[in-house]
């Protein structure tokens, strides 16, 4: 509160409001010169609280100075509103206009910036600073608008793709747990950002590639297939995956012929068999097959052990 003591010392009880305001302004200017901008703002604010009735020039100067102080501490919005007042009290003053243009530029309001520049150029059409700021704003505006259009296009494209995927899923009679909106947001922000999402095949735009999870509950293991084309069959994947025994299968019990694939029939609440020669699409269209979180999952068990596990329910968390 050092500032306050200085101020009290200077104050003369007989000062008129205007004299007080001028003293406070000078104090603000001192702070400003010392680069203590927030303290300068305080001084100017106190000066503006004095009764200055019709002294528009002084009010304009105070707002203009406070605008400058705000600008230096990047309070562009506050600075801008001071510029508006500074101009209101003295429309011929070009300084707050220039400041207003600068603030608008910093706030990326390029149209406003151009308007401020034009206001200033009406006073002095040759002002080089305003002319160059105006040019700068014009060209920034261009690239800004381009980026905006680009973003919109990306979004539009994405929504188109999502819409297409959604209608393909519906047309194929595949059930997913989420509604359209939730499914879109799932595609947009998957639970795991590295995770693959269902996509349209690059070869055939009516064909979907699904990310698929294989669960091995006996071993507590999972496999993740990033792109399982819906027209390929399970055995193709199994043959590749089990051409060598995985590390977790030290006893070499899992191989394509010993594995039985099941899906969880959610309507009946039990596991149902799937033939190895079945395509993914046919499996997804089975009664009671409901895709959760955009990722179909299947349970793979050794043929002999199934009987023991019939009643196990799986809680999948991924």
């Amino acid at each position, binding site marked *: 509160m050092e500032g306050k003591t200085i101020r009290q010392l200077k104050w003369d009880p007989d000062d008129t409001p205007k004299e007080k305001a001028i003293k406070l302004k000078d104090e603000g200017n001192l702070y400003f010169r010392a680069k203590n901008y927030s303290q300068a703002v305080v001084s100017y604010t106190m000066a503006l609280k004095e009764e200055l009735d019709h002294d528009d020039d002084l009010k304009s100067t105070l707002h203009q100075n406070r605008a400058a102080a705000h600008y230096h501490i990047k309070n562009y919005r506050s600075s801008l509103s001071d510029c508006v007042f500074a101009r209101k009290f003295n429309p011929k003053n070009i300084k707050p206009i220039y400041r207003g243009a600068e603030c608008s530029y910093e706030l990326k309001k390029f149209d406003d910036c151009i308007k401020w520049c*034009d206001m200033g*150029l*009406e006073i002095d*059409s040759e002002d080089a600073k305003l*002319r160059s700021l*105006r*040019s700068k704003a*014009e*060209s920034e505006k*261009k*690239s800004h*608008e*381009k980026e905006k*259009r*680009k973003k*919109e*296009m990306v979004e*539009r494209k994405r929504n188109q793709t999502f819409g297409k995927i959604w209608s393909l899923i519906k047309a194929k009679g595949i059930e997913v747990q989420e509604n359209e909106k939730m499914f879109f947001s799932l595609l947009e922000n998957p639970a795991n950002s590295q995770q693959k999402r269902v996509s349209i095949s690059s070869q055939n735009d009516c064909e979907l590639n699904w990310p698929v999870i294989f669960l091995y509950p006996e071993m507590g293991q999972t496999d993740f297939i990033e792109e399982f084309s819906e027209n390929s069959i399970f055995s193709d994947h199994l043959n590749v995956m089990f051409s060598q025994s995985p590390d977790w299968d030290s006893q070499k019990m899992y191989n394509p012929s010993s594995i039985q694939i099941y899906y969880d029939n959610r309507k009946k609440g039990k596991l149902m068999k799937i033939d190895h020669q079945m395509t993914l699409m046919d499996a997804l269209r089975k009664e009671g097959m409901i895709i959760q979180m955009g990722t179909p999952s299947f349970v793979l068990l050794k043929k002999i052990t199934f009987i023991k596990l019939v009643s196990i329910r799986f809680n999948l968390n991924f």
Partner: protein
Amino acid sequence: MESVNELIDFLDVNTRLDIKTLALHHVLSLTGSFESRKLLLSNPKCLSCLIQLAFGKEEQKSINKDAFFSLINLSADEIDAGQMMHQNSNLVQMLLDYILDEKSQFADTACAILSNLSRGKKNSQIIFDKYFTDSNNNSEKNAAVSLAKLLQVFCTEKFNITNNLDYLGPFICNLTQLESVRNSILNDLLIIQRLIPYTTYNRSIIRRGGLIGAIKNCCFNYDYHQQLLLSPDIDILSRLLLPLAGPEEFEPEEMEKLPDDLQYLPPDKEREVDPDVRTMLLETIMMVLCSRKECRDYIKEKNAYVILRELHKWETDDKAKETCEKLVQILIADEPEREYENLHQVPVPGDLAQKFYEFETKELEKNFQ
């Protein structure tokens, strides 16, 4: 003749209101035909009365309005327009002052009269020499209007709340028939920067068309092409191409080469609706394209070709399509030899010129059949 003179006598400011209104109605309907316009103008009293009634602050609004409309009609022909300015040397000054007053109620009609008056090059010259201040020596003439001020008013949205001053577009376009006007526009970066966004101004074809015409006229000053085209502060190519671009999507590598303003256009992007304005835009690009190698290189590098290619597929107007074809031909042709760099100034041998002329005439006839 006698009856017309009698009618004109009733236009006097001091005539009783009901008679004056009626007489003015008659005059207004007379101004619709060519012969009666000649007749009306042959009596100098007619013009001076109409001017008094149009600008008279004490007159009723409907009188002001009818008088202004009569003046629009009277100035419709170039020769009459010249005669009007000769008969009453105050008219142009009054119109200009009226337009520059933001409270004027019929400023739009005043703009339209000026646009009529300035149509011929000779009339434009008279207007500019007599009523506009010279940027070099302001003192000599007591005229108060500067071109810069007029352009600034044109570019100020809502300068006049009840009038949009769109007819200043054609007026400015007419003035750019004069080289001195073109030069003062081209010499001020700020003026061009303010004017060129109007090439895509979709609220008014009058304003847009007039402005594009003015830009086209300015491009007759070949020396400025490089500055117009290559200065990033102006970037005229974007402004000429943007109204010609449609919603078509381009491959990313094609897109990246285009000027910023033409990238990622939305699917609802519309082309300029008026085929004459499209032709004018194409002709302007052609002029810039022809003058220098640097300009051709720049336009090629900016991939203007793909915009024109899509325009050509879409275009249904013969003239615009043909202009588009010519433009593409220059764009894809080999660079001419150094001495013929400025295609505007390539000498054409007499026999070929004759052939070109015959060909053009035939083409023209074909269009009119």
